[in-house]
Structure formats: C-alpha cells, structure tokens
C-alpha cells in the first residue's frame, strides 16, 4: 500500500482532519474571549481563567477526579494485565468463552446500561450486607475499574500477541519455572503495554460522565459531572477556559507518552534484532 494518494484521498484527509480539529481550536480561542457571551468576540482576555482558579467547587471536583483516576488506573492495570495474560498465554481453560465475553462486552456496552446495572448492584449489596453504606468515591472507583480493565486487557492482549512466545520458550528450555518466566521475561517486556494501559485507564476515568452520574451519591461531584451540570444550561466562558486547560494537559501528556513508548519500542526491537543476529 505504498502507492501515491489520489487527489480525492488528500482532499478527504484535509477535510476530515479539519472537521476533527477546528471545533477544538475554536473552543480554545473563545476561552480567551473577554465577552460573557461565548460566541461574540469582545477582545482578548484571561479573565475566565482567573475566575476559574478562584472557584473552590472546581478545585474539589478536579481533586476528586484525579484521586479516582489514579486508584482506578492502578487496579485496572493489574486486573487487565492478568486478564490479558490468561486470554493469550494460558491456552484453553474452563470458562474461557464466558471470560472473553465479559472482557469484550464492557467495551461496547452502552454506558446507560452499565451505569444502571452497577447502581442496582450497589443498592442490592447495601440491602444485603450493608456495604457500600453511601455512594460516592468508592462506588465510582469500582465502576471505573470494571470498564477500564477491559480496555487495558485489549492493549495487553495485542502486545502479548505481537511479542510472540520465542523468548519465553527459550527461558523455559533453559530450565526457568513458569512463574520465573512470567516475572523475569514476560512482565519486563510487557511494561510499555502496561504503561499505555495505565494511561488509558487514567484518562477513561477522568472522562467518564454517564456511569459516574449513575453510581455517585450526594456531594461527590467529579469534574465531568460538574462540567455537565453547568453546560446543560448553555455555553459558559469559564468552561471554555477549563476545557482549554484539560485539552492542553492531555495533549502534552499523550505526546510525551507516545514519544517515550515509541523510542522504547524501537530500542527493544533493536536489541532483539541484535540478539537474533548473534545467535
């Protein structure tokens, strides 16, 4: 597929990427608008940023969202890695079909269904065993782990399949026990995949609105819940400012992560090629 692009394809690429990016760029530009009415230009200003930083409500929501995202990313990475390993490296085991189904379904399940079902679970548990006594931090975190781990598992499965089993088999031939192979060969080589899984789980959690809205309780407002409650009534310049900060932070982090992962992958591939040549 190295043939030159036709004019039509180039046109579609330009149109497509403009469609994807112009709304974001406009969102950022209007955050520097002095006017209170978002789409009417009133000159450059940073007043909405100052106003945003003064809002305690926003800071509380940011802090809550970051805490949930961090814990979620930790658990989701561990559980997702285990799940990916089981699916790719363990061959056939009892319940594999069900397991695979439960790993794919959260990716495509409409959020309203996942959210509603988790809520009724939490309420039934509360009736039965008295836990969770109130909804908020814990319930949101559990809900986020449940769908994030499926995304992590996808990344881990792809990475494991791409890695192949040669090195692991070699280690086993040289007398390493399966557990040793896992800890000293599989996990180190899986590290870049686990890092991208962690990052994805982190952002998925920061981003989630619908499932959080279902399982949250009074007083626990994550950042998306706060943003949603404000923009339901229309455009707000302070939300443009908040959006700009979020978009820039995410874009910078993703670019750095992509760069690191790309380089690491390249170095690893080089090492493996050298090793292969020496033998």
């Amino acid at each position, binding site marked *: 597929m190295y043939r030159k692009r036709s004019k039509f394809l180039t046109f579609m690429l330009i149109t497509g990427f403009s469609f*994807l990016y112009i709304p974001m760029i406009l*969102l950022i530009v209007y955050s520097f608008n002095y006017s209170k009415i978002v789409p009417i230009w009133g000159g450059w200003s940073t007043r909405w940023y100052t106003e945003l930083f003064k809002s305690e409500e926003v800071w509380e929501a940011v802090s809550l969202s970051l805490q949930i995202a961090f814990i979620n990313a930790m658990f989701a990475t561990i559980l997702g890695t285990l799940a990916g390993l089981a699916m790719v490296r363990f061959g056939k085991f009892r319940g594999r079909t069900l*397991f*695979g189904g439960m790993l794919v379904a959260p990716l495509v399940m409409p959020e309203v269904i996942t959210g509603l079902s988790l809520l009724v679970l939490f309420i039934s548990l509360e009736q039965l065993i008295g836990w969770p006594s109130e909804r908020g931090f814990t319930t949101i975190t559990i809900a986020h782990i449940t769908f994030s*781990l499926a995304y992590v598992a996808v990344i881990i499965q792809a990475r494991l399949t791409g890695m192949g089993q040669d090195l692991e088999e070699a280690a086993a031939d040289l007398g390493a026990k399966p557990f040793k192979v896992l800890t000293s060969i599989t996990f180190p080589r899986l590290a870049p995949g686990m890092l991208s899984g962690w990052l994805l789980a982190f952002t998925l959690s*920061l981003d989630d*609105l619908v499932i959080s809205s279902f399982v949250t309780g009074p007083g626990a407002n994550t950042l998306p819940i706060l943003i949603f409650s404000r923009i339901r009534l*229309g455009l707000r310049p302070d939300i443009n400012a908040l959006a700009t900060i979020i978009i820039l932070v995410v874009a910078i982090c993703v670019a750095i992560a992509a760069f690191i992962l790309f380089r690491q992958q390249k170095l690893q591939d080089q090492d493996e090629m050298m090793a292969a040549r020496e033998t």
Partner: protein
Amino acid sequence: MTDNTFPNDLTKNPRGMIQRALNKLQSSWRTIVILIPFIWLSLFFLAPFFIVGKISLAELAISSPPFTKMIEWKDSGIITIRLIFDNFIYIFEDPLYLRTYMNSLRISITSTIICLFIGYPIAYGIVRSGPVVKKLLLFAIILPFWTSFLLRVYAWMGLLSDQGTINNLLISMGFIDDPIKMLYTEFAVFVGIVYTYLPFMILPLYANMEKLDSTLNEAAADLGAGPVVTFFRITLPLTIPGIIAGSLLVFIPATGEYVIPDLLGGGNVQMIGRLLYNEFARNVDWPVACAVAIVLLLLLVLPMAIYQHYQGKAAEE
C-alpha cells in the same frame, strides 16, 4: 495443586509451612491469575444484569428501594415468586417508548453510514501516506480519544448555537439574514455522533487496510482493471471485516447515547438512553427503567455478539 500430603510436623516447622505454601502458590498461580479478574468481572459486570432483570419484573412500590420483592416468604412457609410482566407490556403499548426506540435506531444507523462514508476514504488516505506522515496522522486520529468526550460535544454547542460561529460566519458573509436554528435539533445530534464516533470507525478500517496485500491491486491493474474496478472488486471486499467492526463500534454505543441527545438535541430529540436516564433519575420508576434497559440490551445483543466474533477472529490471526 500436586502436593496434597500434609506431614504431621506441620505445626512444629513454620518455615517449612511457608515454603510449602509458596510452592503451592507457585504451582497454582495460573488459577489465581485467571480467578482475580474473573471474580471481579462476574461480581461487577455480570451479576448486575441479573439484578436489572429481576427488578424489571417487579412492581413500582413506595418503599426503599422503590420496587416490590420477587420472592416472598409467606407465614405458612410457602415461597411465592411474583413475576410481573406489566413493565414490558407497558413499554410495548405506550407509543412513546416504541417511537423512541425506533428513533434511536434510525439516528444511530444513519450516523453509522455517514461515519463509514467519511471514515473510509480517510483510513484509506492514511494507509496510502508515507511512513512518517502515516504515524503523525494516526496519532492525530487517536488524540481525540484521549481528550474529553464531553468537551468535544461542548465544542459543537459553540459552533451550532444561534449566535454561534457558523451562524455568525454565514450572516457576516451575507448568505443569510437571520440565524438558522441548528442547536437543539436532530441535525445537531447527527453532527455530534459523527464527530465523536468517527475515530472508532477509522481505526478498525485502518488496521484492516494496513494488512492488505498491495500486489493484488497491481495484479488487477496488470490485467487491465481500472482504479474504480480494482477498488470495487479487490479492495472493498477485502475490507469488509474492517467495515463491520467499525460500523458496530459506532452503531452500538450511538444507539444508547445519552450525552449527545441531551446537550445537542435538547428536549427535541428523543433517544432511548436519555429516556432511560430520565425514567430513572426524575421519575424514579426503577422497574420501568430496568425494563427499558433490558429491551435495549436485547436489541444490541446480536450486534455485540457479531462484534465479539470478529474480535476473536482478529485476535487469533
């Protein structure tokens, strides 16, 4: 799990016991690796659906939680099981629900087709680019995945509103005198769905096209086929798995979408995700909300199964 013998000096030798436990752990680590995520998903993903099913067969009651019990112990010791299908009958008899389901399907199917027509040439264009440009374009497709979905929808509120960027531009250029109403219409919902779900269409298509063998195209050209014939007889049939995967990834979540119809459609566009949320949050009618969820799930079970089938096949390759 091979070592099942327990020597008598177990209590006298705690170090040996720890050692043995470790050995046992090592030999059964595979089971543990499977069990931890398995139990988590069974408890927090699978079990909840049964509870939703159970509540959908209950009746609204003034209690906490607001529904009747399915299984009751009578004084005489007889267990009574009450299954109430009223909620499902209610959903199918009330034209509001039926209309909303049909409306959701119509909107999500149309959006999927629009995504396919926009996404296909973009994916093809990326595949045809040079190695460096290809990486950059791919990164630019993936980047919106990482930025907030909610904010991407919000961006369109600014573009489409009566005083928004598009109306301002059209008025200043003299095409129109009064703003066209775009926000809070079905048109806005289409734009929102296509905009947010386009990457989900492009990525599976790209992954599929990337694997295609370009020599087939050359062979077709050598045998005298023009580019149009080559596309329809070689490229298009070979990219059907990508088309199916991408379309399902757009269609399934779009059908149950809540945020986009709420923010961009206002009260004017009814979709089932929004109806479900309102039924639950404002009307506090849990049995009906659960029944609505079950019907939505039944609608989407087949597409989801097809998607999983293709995922499994792709993973094996």
